[in-house]
């Protein structure tokens, strides 16, 4: 299926929850959905017999600037051999996105990484802890306004 057909199916199923569809212009076509609908969109994409997105290639947390954080899901179907990108935008003040861990098990660690690096809270995640950084690390390094602290645990950070 082409990205066009997938996005039309999504629109027919979810209506207003599909915020933006961009097929041309950028290199990878994407569909932007509302944060609260992302889990049901995921379930639909995985279980619809015509679409069958069974493989979550990548899940990235992004700081989009202007106090907006984003989550990007790159999906692939092993059976149907097509792909799509799903995007979600949330305000930095209330960065909460429903977890898709129950839809694709691989989201578990990816979501922990996005939480660790960008500070997006995935509601409903079974084990949302920092994964790469120490548990007591201050701040979220991949936010654009992150400043390296001068001291960490009383030790001077060299640069």
């Amino acid at each position, binding site marked *: 299926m082409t990205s066009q057909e997938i996005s039309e199916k999504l629109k027919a199923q979810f209506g207003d929850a599909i915020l933006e569809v961009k097929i041309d*212009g*950028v*290199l*990878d076509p994407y569909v932007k959905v509302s944060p609260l609908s992302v889990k049901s969109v995921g379930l639909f994409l995985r279980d619809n017999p015509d679409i069958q997105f*069974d*493989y*979550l*290639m*990548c899940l*990235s947390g*992004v*700081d989009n600037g202007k106090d907006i954080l984003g989550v*990007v899901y*790159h999906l692939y179907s*092993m059976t149907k*051999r097509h792909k799509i*990108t799903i995007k979600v935008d949330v305000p930095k003040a209330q960065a909460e996105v429903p977890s898709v861990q129950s839809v*694709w*098990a*691989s989201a*578990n*660690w*990816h979501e922990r*990484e996005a939480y660790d*690096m960008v500070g997006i809270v995935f509601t409903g995640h079974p084990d949302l802890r*920092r*994964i*790469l*950084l*120490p548990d007591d690390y201050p701040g979220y*390094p*991949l936010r654009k306004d992150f400043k390296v602290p001068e001291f960490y645990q009383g030790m001077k950070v060299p640069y």
Partner: protein
Amino acid sequence: MPDTLTAPIKTSTGRALRTEEMVINMGPQHPSTHGVLRLELVVDGEIVVDVIPHIGYLHRCFEKHAEHMTNYQQVIPYCDRMDYVAAMNMELGYALAVEKLLGIKVPDRVEYIRVIMAELQRIASHLIAAGTYGLDIGAFTPFLYMFRDRERILDLFETTCGARLLYNYIWVGGVSHDLPPGFIDKAKAFCKYFRPKIKEYNDLLTFNEIFVKRTANVGVLPADVAIAYGCSGPMLRGSGVNWDLRRDDPYSIYDRFQWQPQIGKGEMGTVGDCWDRYIVRIREMEQSINIIEQALEQIPEGDVMSAIPKRIRPNAGEVYVRTESARGELGYYIISDGSTSPYRVKARSPSFVNLSVLPEICRGSMIADVVAITGSTDIVLGEVDR
């Protein structure tokens, strides 16, 4: 007759022994964790109830480094340092992603050189994987044989770009040096030398009775679980899924060569056990040799520097490019804001995703099998932690 399994264990004085689960830390400095990985094992006697991996000991935040570089080419040495035993593959993925963002086509000679290097690197990496796996199980000799042959590949790399481990060789738009005189003959000689060696490994390790007993039917990963957890590379193929990005989502010039992806068939036990994951790597080396030999025959003449852009300034946009590294699907998600350095680079490293399935396949096994299973996932911690 009392039920020996459920009856409380009695001491010599007749008192019941209290039994409970115990937590054991394996790592971060443990020879079988292939780097600094800490596994928190919850055990009930010898049986593993749960495994909780703790990672991040090698974390350098590659992604932050990439954002702070002043241009796209400067990121490449950091890519090397993610998967330090398959650095060529890491560079290749990044270079392809930026080239797609820029919309440049590289000369044919560059494509061939890249394929030759990537496949040589895959063999070198699988040699480490198989060699250290034998070491984990207790076989020391195969490790030495495999490192002996890996040395020849590193010599080829050294004559090409001067480095043996971290190359900074594949650049955006080209490669840093053309092949040196005599390289093609040396590489052909290597292929001829290497083919019979695979039989030697099989005699030494693959079909060794002890090795088979330790790995067959251990850590079985069913295909549907592997796909749900996003496993890729030999890990996924070991579970019997016929899936290789070089064939199924071709990039570079892989569609020009004749070769077969290898899958696990459960020859020694169950499909998706440790032995299957191991044998997939061994057989892939032979396929890589096939690709290299064809590439060495077909390689055209040309200028390897002609397509290297003077200044890299892609239009605003984003791209996700995935390649088959030695460990599986290596994806780079690059966002450009139109400036000379990337706005965001996310590396989807195969080891990170492959490691996340470890608790799933370790539950219910013995403690000693955890070592066998961890070894069979072939993780490189530099790439897990990035």
